[in-house]
C-alpha cells in the first residue's frame, strides 16, 4: 500500500449529503475486475447522462477539477453498501484524499486499507473550503497527515482521523503483517475458546 504523508493538489467540491457508495460506483460495475479500470466509471450516473455524455455542470467534469486528487464532500460521505470497489474507483480515478464532516463507517475502513485518506473536518470548515473553491476553483489544497492540517489559500484548518488509521496511512502498513505477529495468541485464544464456548462452533448435522 502507498504511504500518505502530504499532498498538494486540485480539490473538487462535491457538496452532497449522504453521497453513498451506490453512487460512487453503481452496482452494474461490481462485476468488473479492478483491472478493467474502475476509475472510468467513478460516479458514472452523476458524471454522465444516460447516453454517456459528460454532464458539463457536474463538478468533476469542470476543466479545473477534472484532474482533482482531493474531494471535499458532504456529511456521511460513502454511506451505504460495503463495496470496497467504491474506494478502488476513487483511487484509480486519482483521488487520494476525501475531506468531509463525517464518513460511512465501512467506507472509511475500506479507504485506509487502500491508502485513501478520509479527513474529518468540522461542518463550518468544509463549508468554508467549498466556498473558497467556488471563488478560486484552481486553488490547490495541501493536506498534511502528519500535522493533520489542510492549507487552503492563506487559511489553515485542522482535521481529525482515527489515530491508528493515521499511522497506517503514514507508514503504508498492511494488517496482515501485524496480525501474523499475533499468531500464537490467536491459536491460544481459539483453544481456550473451544472449551469456554463449545456451542459456538457450527453443528455438523446441517
Amino acid at each position, binding site marked *: 500500500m502507498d504511504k500518505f504523508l502530504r499532498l498538494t493538489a486540485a480539490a473538487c467540491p462535491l457538496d452532497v*449529503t449522504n453521497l453513498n457508495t451506490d453512487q460512487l460506483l453503481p452496482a452494474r460495475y461490481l462485476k468488473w475486475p479492478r483491472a478493467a479500470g474502475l476509475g472510468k466509471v467513478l460516479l458514472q450516473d452523476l458524471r454522465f447522462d444516460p447516453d454517456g455524455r459528460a454532464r458539463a455542470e457536474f463538478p468533476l467534469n469542470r476543466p479545473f477539477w477534472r484532474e482533482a486528487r482531493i474531494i471535499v464532500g458532504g456529511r456521511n460521505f460513502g*454511506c*451505504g453498501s460495503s463495496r470496497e470497489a467504491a474506494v478502488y474507483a476513487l483511487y484509480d480515478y486519482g483521488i487520494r484524499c476525501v475531506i468531509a464532516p463525517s464518513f460511512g463507517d465501512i467506507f472509511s475502513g475500506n479507504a485506509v486499507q487502500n491508502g485513501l485518506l478520509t479527513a474529518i473536518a468540522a461542518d463550518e470548515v468544509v463549508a468554508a473550503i467549498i466556498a473558497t473553491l467556488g471563488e478560486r476553483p484552481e486553488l490547490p489544497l495541501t493536506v498534511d497527515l502528519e500535522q493533520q492540517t489542510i492549507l487552503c489559500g492563506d487559511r489553515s484548518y485542522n482535521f481529525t482521523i482515527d489515530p491508528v488509521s493515521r499511522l497506517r496511512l503514514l507508514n503504508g502498513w498492511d*494488517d496482515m503483517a501485524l496480525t501474523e505477529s499475533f499468531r500464537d495468541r*490467536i491459536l491460544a485464544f481459539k483453544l481456550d475458546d473451544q472449551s469456554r*464456548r463449545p*456451542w459456538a462452533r457450527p453443528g455438523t448435522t446441517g
Partner: protein
Amino acid sequence: MATNNFLYYLTFRPEAMAAFFGMTQPQTLIDKLWAAHEIVRRQDGESLLWVDRHYVHEGSFHAFSRLTERGAMVAEPNLTFAVADHYVPTRAPRTNIGNPEIARMVRQVEENTARHHIKLFGLDDPRQGIVHVVGPEQGLTLPGLLIVCGDSHTSTHGALGAYAFGIGASEVAHVLMTQTIWQRKPKRMRITIDGRATPGVAAKDIVLAIIAKIGADGATGYAIEFAGIAIRALSIEGRLTLCNMSIEAGARCGTIAPDATTFDYVKGRPFAPKGPAFDQAVEAWSRLNSDNGADFDHEVRLDASEIMPIVTWGTSPQHALPIEASVPDPARELDPARANDLRDALSYMGLRPGTKLTNIAIDRVFIGSCTNARIEDLRAAAAVLVGRVSKVPGLVSPGSSAVKRQAEQEGLDRVFRDAGLEWGESGCSMCVGINGDIVAPGERCASTTNRNFGGRQGPGARTHLMSPAMVAAAAVTGHLADVRPLLVGRKL
C-alpha cells in the same frame, strides 16, 4: 516467560484485570459480546477479534483473488459459509444462465469455495437464499457469535444477540486468512422502544421512525442495542428487519438481547446445537444482556404506540414520514445544507413540495430483500392482497428457497399471482439490481427494501421504502397508501 505473558494479558485486557482484582462493573450486552471475542487489545485501542462465522458470496471475489496473490489458504473453512445470492437470476432460468457475466460470477464462487473447502449453498442447493436470511434460518447465526460478511446488511444477524457487521474486501481477505479482524470498540447506544405498536405498524415502520429521528448518520461510530417492550414483542423476523437497517442509521451493528423468543427460534435448526449442548448454550445465552446500571454512551427513546405506517419520499432512508404527511418544502428549512439536500432529493424523485404522500402514484412494486422477504413478511403482504388485484406490475422474490417452499405450501404464491404479481426465485434481486432485475429510469417503485438511494434499483429509478403490508396497499391502490383501512375485517 509465563509470568510475562500473564502480565501482558492483564495489561492489554482491562476487563481481565478488573475481574482478576474482583472489580466487576455493570456491562452492556455490547461490552459482553466484545469481551468474549477480544484476543488482544493494543495500547492504541485497536483490538483483534475472533470471528465465529464468516459468510461469503459471489461479490467476495476480490478477496479470494487476494488469497491467490499471496498463495494463502482459508484458515477456518469450517467457520466459513458461502451463498450465491447477489448476482443470481430471480426471474430468469437459473440453470444455463443466459447472461455470461452473471454465469461467470456464479461459477467463480463455486470454484473459489471448492478450492478452499468452504460449504456453498449454491443455486442447486435447497438451502440457497439471501445470506442474511439463510444464516438465521439454518441455525448458523446464533446468540453470542461474532459474525462478519462482505455486505453492509450483516447487521441483520444481531437480531439473535450476535455481534454482526459488514466489512470490505480487504477485511474479507484478512478474515479468510486469519479468522480474525482488527476493530476499534465502538461507542454504545441504546434505543429503547416503549409501548405497543398498533395494528398495521411493523418492524419496518419502527426502524424507519428511528432513522427519521436520529438521521442516516445518527449512529455513526456506535453499536446499537435495541431494547424495550416493543422490541420484546417482535418476532425474530421483525427483529431481523430492525437490525438489518441499523446500518442505514450509520451504526456498525445493531443487537438485541436474546430471550425465550430467540431460543425457540434457534431450537432444532440444522446447524444449531442439539440436545444437552443446546441446553448448555441457552444457559450461556441467558447471560447475554445489559446489566442493571450499565453505562451507555447515548440513549434514544421512542414510543411504539405513536408510530404510524411510514414511507420514504426521498433518496435517503432518513427521508421518512408517516403516510398521512406531505412531501417537505425546502423553502421552510432553515439550515442551507439540509435545504439543499431536500431540493436534490425532490428533484431526483420528481416530486413537488407539499404533495400529499397518498397522492403519489407508483409504477411498480417489489417485495423482497434481506430486509423484508421472510415468511412473516410474505404473509403480511398476502393478507392485504388476498382477493384483490394489483394496479401495477410487481415482483415478489422470497428471501430464501426455503421461504419460497413454505410460502407455496401456505398458498401465498397463489395470492400474489392472482393479484397479478410475478412470483420469482430467491436472491438480492431488485434491491440492488446487480442481477439485471431493475426498475426502469423514471419509474416509481414501492419497495420492501432498505435503500432508496438515487440509482440503487437501477439508473434513474425512484424508490419508496415501506413495510410489506404497505407495499401491498400501494399495489392495490396504485399509489402510496395507508394499509390500515385495507386491513379492516381481515385476519392478520
